[in-house]
């Protein structure tokens, strides 16, 4: 079995806190994995270590056959991993279009000469990417597609979440890491958001997703498999129905030691 992403013995400490404790986690291409566990169990830290924001104190991560344990954040992105952040990290003064283009970095020509002198060619690239961004936004919220040049800071949280997902999807990553994408949304809004994400995945069959989510209904509906963390350790793994009835998992959520 070849894995798309494979973490082996991954460990990360913050002072005395062991945020990731010898974690093994493997993801098969095209699957949707739920990463669950109580607050502070290390889910966000896992994303941060994989994407090179924090270094690992032990263990390794391979992605698509290459070792990315010590790779920088830009290198991880270029390898094909895109993410969203638990606490939204959009650039608020910039427009919807600009924010989405930030995610499209590797597919944009970054040459000085191209950008400053060859404005005709630049315009063509701009127009192609504008339609791509617009098409993507339309999947999530047609209304937003009419407002591509409005600053993100003026939009409600729900829209910002959608834009952040568009920013991660625009470059057609192989692996998408979603960190509580529906935080702050109502039940219906969450359902809609998940449908939209599934719709994008139908368009791009190569997309693999790891999702951190507190709403268990969502996890049950969209994931094929779950990994449950507690104190940085993996305490259960399997289809949601199976881990949900696991005694250790129930104890972790109830806070029993």
């Amino acid at each position, binding site marked *: 079995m070849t894995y798309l992403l494979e973490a082996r013995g991954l460990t990360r400490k913050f002072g005395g806190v062991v945020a990731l404790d010898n974690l093994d986690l493997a993801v098969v291409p095209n699957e949707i994995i739920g990463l669950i566990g109580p607050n502070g169990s290390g889910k966000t830290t896992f994303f941060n270590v994989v*994407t*090179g*924001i924090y270094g690992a104190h032990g263990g390794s991560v391979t992605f698509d056959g290459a070792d990315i344990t010590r790779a*920088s*954040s*830009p290198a*991880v*992105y*270029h390898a094909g991993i*895109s*993410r969203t*952040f638990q606490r939204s*990290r*959009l*650039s*608020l*003064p*910039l*427009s919807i279009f*600009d924010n989405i*283009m*930030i*995610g499209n*970095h*590797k597919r*944009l*020509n*970054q040459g*000085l000469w191209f*950008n*400053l002198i060859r*404005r005709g060619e*630049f*315009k063509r690239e*701009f127009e192609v990417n*504008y339609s791509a961004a*617009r098409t993507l936004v339309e999947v999530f919220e047609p209304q937003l597609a009419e407002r*591509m*040049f*409005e*600053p993100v800071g003026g939009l409600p949280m729900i829209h910002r979440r959608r834009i952040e997902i568009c*920013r991660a999807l625009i*470059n057609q990553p192989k692996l998408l890491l979603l960190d509580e994408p529906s935080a702050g949304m109502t039940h219906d809004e969450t359902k809609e958001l998940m449908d939209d994400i599934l719709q994008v995945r139908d368009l791009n069959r190569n997309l693999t997703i790891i999702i951190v989510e507190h709403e268990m209904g969502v996890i049950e509906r969209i994931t094929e498999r779950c990994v449950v963390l507690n104190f940085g350790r993996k305490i259960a793994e399997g289809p949601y129905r199976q881990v949900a009835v696991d005694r250790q998992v129930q104890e972790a959520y109830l806070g029993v030691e």
Partner: protein
Amino acid sequence: MSEVMQKMRAPLLPGVVALALSTAYLIALLAAEKQALIIGLLAFAVVAVLAAHYLGWLNLVSRSFADQEDVLGIYAILAACVVAAFFHDNHFVLLLFVTVLLYTVATLGLNIQFGYAGVLNFAGASFFGIGAYTSAVLSTYTAVPHLLVLLIGGMLAALIGSLLLVPVLRTRGHYAALVTIAFALLLKTFLEVNNVLGGPQGMQVKGMSILGWSFNDNFEIGKIEMSFYLNYFVVSMLLLTGTFVLVRRLERSWIGLNLDALRLDEIAASCFGLDIARWKITAFLLGNFLIGIAGALFGMVGGFVAPNNYTFADSLIMVSILLLGGIGNPWGLVVATFIVVVVPEKLQTIQEYRILLFALIVIMMLLFRPEGLLPRPVRRYFPGWRA
């Protein structure tokens, strides 16, 4: 199709009217000699701008500029030429005007660094000075063609500025700013003790001359005597136009987006592939390059360089222009440079208090209008472009 798009563009008229009125006003202000008249004119401008603001006219103007910038830019160049022609034999006013143009080029450079990349540079005047000293040395000791001297001035400023790259990249926020302040003080001391560079007295700079045309001689068109500063006006205007277009294109490209992204959130930017160091370096070097070119030309215009002309206080004035004009908005910088350079020069009474006044202006702006006189609009990659 293109006709439909034309119709959707904001009208040209408000921009043209605003340009014409500002030109007339500028001529009146520059021509005024009596202090009472100057104070009256300044008060009038404040009232007029406030009134236009409350009547919503300023909005019309800024929308007009946003959508019709290409056309209005050409009109703005014409307007500058009209002002220069009006004062064609007036050394004092033309020198002042050229100073404004070159300071604008320098603040456009600072704007790339601070406005876009978020790298604070409190040594703007030092890099301006490096350009000016390059002119002095090269024109005194060598026969390097003068246009090349300008280029070398820019490159030297960028090169010497790269000494600061390591601390600027490694330290964050205020610490990086402190490093630039230390650099400004060091450079001034270095110039003062260095005898080859004239020590505290400084050195002469030869006037510009291109293909045998000597810039420091008055000349005649028809029977009318022209101030030699008109030569410098033409070159400065060309430099400013080129710089303005460059900065505009930079902002309206993926590179401008990169700089904004890294200023606003380095972590998010690097998670989307941005090489933070590469783009900070690009912004810092490019900014200093532009400041250096402007300084090199300014050295030739003034005919004289000395350490005291490029102090930390002058750097602060450049930063205050940035804050006043609207960080990131080139048009705002043009307006702010006029205000900051021209007003103290005309209003003799406040000359001694100019630093105090600028400090006050900066504090007032930060308190009441942190986005500056002309706030930066959301990026439009092509003015007037509609999907």
